[in-house]
């Protein structure tokens, strides 16, 4: 298997699916020039400007047109450029895409993939570094994918494109350069299945998206200090692999959820709440969450560093949890 970057893995997955199914197409700003990150490099040349549509800066219609095109039977990939700009298209996403199938009693098939590179991004400040994936777990009708590796990005993107549901696909933009093995023919990865990154019996680390490499690093450091973490990358937040987390917790009794997003109202709250409901408080020894404090992402490096989750903070949080 070839080792390629995450962004190249994403490119190949979309390429494969557009070759496979002529009803798949992509729309968004600058996509005909290959996209902001090169995710669509070469697509215009291969598929032409009817299937690779560079759009005006019109987020409402980028999103809404994707929906309309799905309603007549095509399968658009809606490229949002950077997550933060989806705020300019929330009616189309939340009031329309998420609800049409239900409101219309099953007549509508909003088979769109909405790609939104997200996460803290090297000193890009508050308007270019948001992580609001938890919002969309709260919206019926939506599927939420948050991959962290090249192979997962590729496999989950294939699943997303083939799915009849609207899938919010959070590309981890800070990990675009990350390399890893990806198969020649990309097989779909089912949604709702966590990936175990490390096995251990002392505590369960649940995580996803761009922070995953640092959680792995932290787990290695913890292992060196005699703490064996069971590390699960959820990969998708709706549906999410409750069973895997519960099974791990039945062994470890200790849960630490780590995400880049703000802790308050983040999906870590849902993971914790659900596990306590499922296993009962008596089934657990200690629980904790580690995320960004409830503060916007600042620009200056020392400020960004002060707030953002990193390996050292993960290690410290895990050790604190072990002491409880």
């Amino acid at each position, binding site marked *: 298997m070839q080792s390629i970057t995450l962004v190249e893995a994403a490119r190949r997955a979309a390429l494969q699916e557009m070759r496979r199914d002529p009803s798949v197409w992509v729309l968004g700003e600058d996509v005909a020039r290959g996209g902001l990150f090169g995710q669509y490099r070469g697509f215009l040349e291969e598929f032409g400007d009817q299937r690779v549509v560079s759009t005006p800066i019109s987020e409402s219609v980028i999103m809404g047109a994707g929906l*309309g095109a799905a309603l*007549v039977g095509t399968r658009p990939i809606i490229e949002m450029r950077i997550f933060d700009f989806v705020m300019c298209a929330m009616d189309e996403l939340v009031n329309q895409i998420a609800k049409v199938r239900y409101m219309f*009693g099953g007549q509508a098939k909003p088979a769109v993939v909405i790609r939104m590179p997200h996460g803290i991004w090297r000193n890009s400040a508050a308007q270019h570094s948001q992580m609001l994936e938890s919002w969309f777990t709260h919206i019926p009708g939506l599927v939420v994918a948050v991959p962290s590796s090249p192979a997962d990005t590729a496999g989950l993107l294939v699943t997303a494109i083939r799915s009849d549901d609207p899938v919010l696909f959070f590309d981890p933009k800070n990990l675009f350069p990350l390399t890893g093995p990806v198969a020649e023919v990309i097989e779909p990865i089912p949604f709702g299945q966590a990936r175990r990154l490390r096995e251990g019996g002392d505590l369960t680390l649940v995580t996803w998206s761009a922070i995953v490499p640092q959680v792995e690093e932290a787990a290695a450091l913890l292992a060196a200090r005699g703490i064996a973490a069971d590390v699960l990358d959820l990969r998708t937040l709706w549906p999410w692999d409750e069973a895997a987390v519960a099974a791990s917790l039945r062994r470890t009794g200790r849960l630490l959820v780590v995400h880049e997003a703000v802790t308050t109202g983040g999906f870590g709250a849902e993971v914790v709440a659900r596990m306590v409901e499922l296993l009962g408080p008596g089934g657990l020894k200690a629980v904790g969450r580690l995320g960004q404090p409830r503060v916007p992402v600042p620009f200056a490096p020392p400020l960004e560093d002060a707030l953002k989750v990193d390996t050292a903070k993960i290690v410290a949080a895990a050790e604190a949890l072990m002491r409880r």
Partner: protein
Amino acid sequence: MTRIGDNRARLLALYTTMCRIRAFEETALAAHKAGEIPGPLHVSIGQEAVAAGICGNLRRDDRITSNHRGHGHALAKGAGVAGMMEELFGRAGGHCRGKGGSMHIADFSVGMLGANGVVAGGIPIAVGAAQGLKLMGSDAIVACFFGDGAINRGPFLEGLNWAALYRLPVLFVCEDNGVAAFTATASVTAGPGVAARAEALGVPTVSVDGNDAAAVDEAAARLVAEVRAGTGPRLLHATTYRITGHTSTDPAAWRDPAAVEAARAAEPILRLRARLLSEGVAGSTLDIIQGDALAEMAAARSSALAAPWPDPAVAWEDVQDIGAVAGEA
């Protein structure tokens, strides 16, 4: 087109559609008043000529998108009456299985892609549908209905620019009844109006007296042909008057009664009736059409009232395939 010979037939078809819309909505109003229809209800009484005139020129495989005041659009596009009435009543046999109600009527089987509870919400969807149709090589077109209130929302600009840019087969239809909810649109709309805005966005525009069914029909025939020919989008600006209030429970007491009286006299069904009479159609023929429409809708009302409610289990269905939650109380 062999329009001359069958002009009377066309006008009669328009008349029939308009009477059916009127009858449907008056029946619905009565049913709402009687507590048979829950939730908000927006009727288009006085605006029927626009829906009838546009949709009469569309093929079944053409699509439409609509707004919160969409009964007329749906009916004119061919949506089944029983399914519409049951939807209003929240019954199992509604087009949306009772999940949508008046504000979300859709009938995909006749190309009606949905009413919309968000002003201007249908515009992005319409242009996307047109783009999809074009991509698939279809020559079907999309008619996009919205009110004069929608032209102050951003998606109007984004959608018209988009349609013009990609030369998409969209006929935008602005039903200009002069009001948005309880506010006169002129009091919140700067500049010369919708036609100038559309032209500035590259969308050729025609204005028409939207209460003159024949005029709407004629304009629509021309514009639909142009759009279908692939020459890009067009906008029809149809001026009309909403005789009733914003919702079924709004008495619109703030309106000038004289203006309402004048509007009642100038309303499109009366006008078309006069025209048909002048063209030699017998009054009794027209009465029969009207009577049939009322009877049809009365029957639909009784059926809807007698129709079964949706099973509560239905509430859990059609959310999504992956990650659907199982029904549990």
